[in-house]
């Protein structure tokens, strides 16, 4: 029975993906992609990866969709009408066949994976005690493979620096214009009511993330969404990108991570290792700081390059 449900889910995912590719309607493609993201979230829940499901639903179904919709509105205003897929068979037949080949090869590999499946679950659980955590996914992200998570924060910051570098010289250091010309009343209402709940959920996610599904990425995404909502409703202006406080918030999480990492050289077993007695509080502390950094970075990535000149 559950396999039938999964098959329907998979069929829906593939159908939506195909629709996204072939439809002529640019906005329709984005909406279909957002639905795809939400279905994919359910798919991840079916794969019993609740941590991933939360991240996918929040980012794939939410933030990415917002980014795409804003871009589409901009392109309709500023650029030539986007073209549709080529109808000339010579243009699409060869790529279609080669992509089909890739799919077939992948399918063969997926079906031929060795059994029993190799897994690091044993080792991950066995080492869990040394971290004081209960959620093995969090342990992988913040202990076993902490360097990935740390450098991925640097990737996010570089992406933001890159996005900012796309502004006009005069606007560099200023703020993005997120507020629409007309702000509908219901949006303002939502922006007043929703954020307290959002913040509560985010704090809860960080707190339980140490032991249960949830954690800094999911919480950061929710906070980012709340910040965007408030700015879209015009309740607060988007921050100046040159603001020192903002930049401290963005760099704070990874900076703390680096500091604790080097602290490990002095008092534990090397870079990015935690003294066992205080491993959990250290990790939760890093997660809290990272959550703020991620929230700020994601929100500013959606907001895009600054387009108003900085005010002193």
């Amino acid at each position, binding site marked *: 029975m559950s396999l039938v449900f999964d098959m329907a889910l998979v069929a829906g995912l593939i159908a939506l993906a195909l629709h996204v590719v072939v439809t002529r309607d640019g906005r329709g493609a984005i909406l279909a992609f957002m639905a795809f993201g939400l279905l994919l979230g359910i798919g991840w829940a079916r794969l019993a990866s609740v941590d991933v499901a939360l991240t996918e639903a929040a980012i794939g179904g939410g933030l990415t969709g917002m980014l795409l919709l804003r871009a589409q509105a901009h392109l309709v205003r500023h650029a030539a009408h986007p073209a549709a897929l080529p109808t000339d068979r010579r243009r699409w037949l060869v790529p279609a066949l080669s992509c089909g080949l*890739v799919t077939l*090869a*992948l399918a*063969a*590999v*997926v079906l*031929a*994976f*060795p059994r029993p*499946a*190799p*897994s*690091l679950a044993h*080792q991950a659980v066995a*080492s869990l005690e040394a971290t004081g955590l209960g959620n093995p996914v969090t342990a992988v992200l913040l*202990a*076993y*493979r*902490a*360097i*990935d998570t*740390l*450098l*991925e924060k*640097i*990737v996010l*910051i*570089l*992406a933001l*620096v*890159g*996005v*900012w*570098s*796309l*502004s*006009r*010289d005069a606007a*560099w*250091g200023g703020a993005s214009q997120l507020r629409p010309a007309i702000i509908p009343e219901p949006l303002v209402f939502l922006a007043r009511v929703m954020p307290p709940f959002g913040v509560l959920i985010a704090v809860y996610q960080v707190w339980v993330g140490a032991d249960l599904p949830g954690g800094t990425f999911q919480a950061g995404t929710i906070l980012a969404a709340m910040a965007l909502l408030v700015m879209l409703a015009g309740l607060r202006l988007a921050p100046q990108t*040159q603001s*020192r406080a903002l*930049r*401290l918030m*963005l*760099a704070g999480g*990874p*900076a703390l991570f*680096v500091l604790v*990492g*080097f602290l*490990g*050289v002095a008092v*534990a*077993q*090397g*870079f*990015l*290792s*935690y003294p066992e007695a205080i491993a959990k509080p250290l990790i939760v502390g890093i997660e809290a700081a990272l959550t703020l950094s991620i929230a700020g970075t994601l929100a500013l990535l959606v907001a895009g390059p600054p387009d108003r000149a900085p005010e002193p």
Partner: protein
Amino acid sequence: MTSAYAATPGGLLLVLAVMLPAAAVLAMLVLGPRRTRVVALATLALGLVVALAIGLELVRSGTALIYVLGNWQPPLGIALRADGLSVMMLAVTAVVMAATGLFARDLFGLDLATADGRLGTSFWTLLMGLWSGLNLVFVSQDLFNLYVALELLTFAAVPLVCLDGRGETMAAALRYLMFALLGSMLYLLGAGLLYGAYGTLDIRLIASASQHGPAMAIALALMIPGLLAKAALFPLHLWLPPAHAGAPAAASAVLSALVIKAPVFLILRLVADIAPPGSAAVAGQVLAVLGAASILFCSIMALRQERLKLMIAYSTVAQIGYLFIVFPLAGVGDGTAPWGTIAWTGGALQLTSHALAKAAMFMAAGIVAEAVGHDRIRDLGGFGRAPPLPPPTFGWAGLSLMGIPPSGGFIAKCLLLTAAAIGGHLWLALTILAGGLLAGGYVFPVMDRALATPAEPLLLRKPIPLRLELVPLVLAVLAVALGFLPLAPFGLLQIGRPDIALAVSP
């Protein structure tokens, strides 16, 4: 099986090589535009010291440097490891980075309005991100960690291309981003398949597995083309010329000299360290054919360019081709140890000398463009009289690209040619010779323009301080001086090879 990594003294230096520039990115963000340049220059100095210390430690101990992050042993954790080849890459990177830093300081100093503005500040921050990514590519042992390293490179390199904010460079940057992302994704997919088959992403552990299923072949067939798209090997090179030619000179130098070497290095590791011998031999043959095609096709394209920077960019794709013909020449995949062969040494020399020469050329071209206001080769008659040093820089760097003695490029191409002759690869030998001639074909006309007497003298837009011109000249001279280096230091390349765990007797 000796699967455990034992940290060596000095292993922490590898962490520093990666984290120092990463920490600089954070510091720059917080301290703001006015202090960005100072932080960058300080980091460059420190990084150079770290690279030097790594080199000394490697030579002193005679074994690879190893560090286990957080003391979590692979497969659960991640290990860093630097053998002779990695250390050579770290060193070349540090030298080119430091030179670029000195060059950029004076280049952006020419125009006070941009010095602390958008262009300068973004450049320095992205440069540090780039450095962190490069160093990680050279030392990481974990395939997913290497994916993160590749993304560090992508996100730092793409915005560098379009710093001048014109529509054309935006298009070039976007095309670059598309190729780079596609490359990363194919790489990631391959890594996922390998994890599914082996339950680890550690290079040493995967390599020591006794049985290889279809996952290995398919994973390599995804990862290698993905990395080729990033390395811009023919026919996936289309993005490179506009991107490298459109970037500010200091950025072009790093992009062309270093950034595309990272995926090449990874391909080398996949083919030489992970692939089972049969697949490695096949991959080596295919790569060599593409490399040869790259040399010939892109050299001809370089000949036909009207703009100096585009010509240099096409020359990069051609010179990268030499690195791929090393695979069959060094006998990768035929059961012998490739790192002892002269082709392997030749490849390493080619990599080093091209990095130095190409950085020098892009910087020289940047100075000319800055002084004259354009880089159309036809209208550059007599540019040798204006800023005096770019023409000799160009000439010296050109020696290395053409493979004329005495230069690093000459020794490199000579070794490759010898290997091709000994191994009976006639077509590769002919390609190497033809590539040298074609390189002469595109370098000489520029020199000719430099020494020509124009009908009307070139108008100089702005004076160029001598200090600015010196940096590329030094790099070009270094590229030539490599030719005088006794080949002994390249015994360095064999340190740490093979990886101990690989030396399991069959």
